[in-house]
């Protein structure tokens, strides 16, 4: 009898944990869908849509995304201490989200989106459910991959000052990453790729400079905003 009772408990436990994972995955699917739309909005920046408009469109999606993180946080509250049991189910979505938020933030302020800022934007960090640091760093690497394309299209559209600004930003970012002692893992591989982004931006800067298209140096002392 006593054994039976215990196993009845186990039966309930197993079914609960299966349904929990199903619910988490359902949220992750929706996150994935929002980040796609967000990315779609962001892409317009390559077609020279004014940044203010891009930011505005994005703002709405970020709210939706935040909502999803809220739902995820609620689900995780039901199983305290099991964050990392399910972490793999929303990891890659979070990395993409960070990359998009960081790009938007850079467009807006010219600065790197910090870890706490990213957490705040996603509504994380209040409970035990925070933004994993490796996920944050990978997201930043993904963001760097978008910059060469941005610079090429900006120059084509006649903005000859952007290469300098992007180059400055990317050089600093690269230098900061070099401080880390990375293991031979996914993050290291992504960071290795950043070198090529840097080089491409330099080439564009060189192209603009050598033709005398870049604005005079005094411009540097003014604002970073477009």
């Amino acid at each position, binding site marked *: 009898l006593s054994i039976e009772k215990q196993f009845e408990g186990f039966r309930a436990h197993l079914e609960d944990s299966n349904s929990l994972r199903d619910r988490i995955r359902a949220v992750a699917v929706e996150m994935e869908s929002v980040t796609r739309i967000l990315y779609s909005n962001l892409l*317009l920046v390559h*077609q*020279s*849509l004014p940044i203010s408009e891009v930011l505005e469109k994005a703002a709405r999606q970020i709210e939706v995304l935040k909502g999803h993180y809220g739902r995820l946080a609620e689900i995780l509250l039901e199983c305290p201490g099991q964050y990392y049991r399910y972490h793999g189910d929303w990891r890659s979505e979070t990395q993409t989200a960070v990359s998009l938020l960081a790009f938007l933030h850079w467009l807006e302020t010219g600065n790197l989106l910090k870890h706490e800022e990213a957490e705040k934007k996603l509504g994380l960090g209040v409970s035990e459910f925070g933004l994993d640091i490796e996920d944050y760093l990978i997201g930043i690497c993904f963001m760097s991959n978008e910059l060469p394309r941005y610079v090429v299209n900006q120059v084509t*559209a*006649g*903005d*000859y000052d952007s290469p300098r600004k992007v180059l400055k930003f990317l050089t600093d970012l690269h230098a900061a990453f070099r401080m880390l002692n990375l293991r031979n893992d996914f993050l290291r591989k992504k960071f290795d790729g950043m070198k090529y982004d840097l080089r491409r931006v330099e080439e564009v800067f060189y192209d603009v400079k050598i033709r005398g298209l870049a*604005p005079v140096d005094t411009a540097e002392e003014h604002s970073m905003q*477009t």
Partner: protein
Amino acid sequence: GSSKKPRTLMVDSAMQDGFAKYAEYLNELNDKRERIVKASRDVTINSKKVIFQVHRISRGNKEEVLATAENDLANVTKQYMSKLVKELQGTDFWKLRRAYTFGVQEYVEAATLCNFCKTGTLLNLSEINASLLPLSDPSMEPLQINVLDYILGIADLTGELMRLAIGRISDGEVEYAKKICSFVRDIYRELTLLVPIMEDNADMKKKMETMLQSVVKIENACYSVHVRGSEYIPLLGTNDPDFSLFGAADFEP
């Protein structure tokens, strides 16, 4: 200084029109597929539960356990298979097969397992299909499980029959186990001839290997009880080995 000219201003509207149409088509298709996948997953999970229920059979509780299993199966049919039936019609049967095949296979497995336990025979595809007919709207072409899904389900059935046979021997029901053995051998032999002419038969080839292992496991179990029993025929001075000595039934009053 910026002289930007947004590239998107001159959108190709003919293109947009076409894609609006494609988007609608894809949205409908994807939604339907999503509904079918969910229904199929429900069918799978609940058919598995039916199978687990059948395995709760013991010597004394057979009718009772099977009644519950059949009832559960009827619920699967009514609650979940009906959803599949409602979504699918015409070209969907093949177009969306991948979205529902696993559910249907598991359903076939559960239905044929219940039927075997009850009647000792193989529930035919036409019988299963007939039982699905009442679920569908008479104006629509009704869902008919295809031969491939049926065969794939039968292949998995043999694994469950193996589990059942081992359990039955434990309960002293050796004749039952022998019947399973001969039944599974027949299925294996028939499928041997069908596998090479099935389409996409990579899965099925793997299942055949597992099936052969199941056959051998049952044969070994029958062998073991036979040899053991044969030893005591002279010992007991009877020609009917007392297999009832096996199993839990015996030592508890």
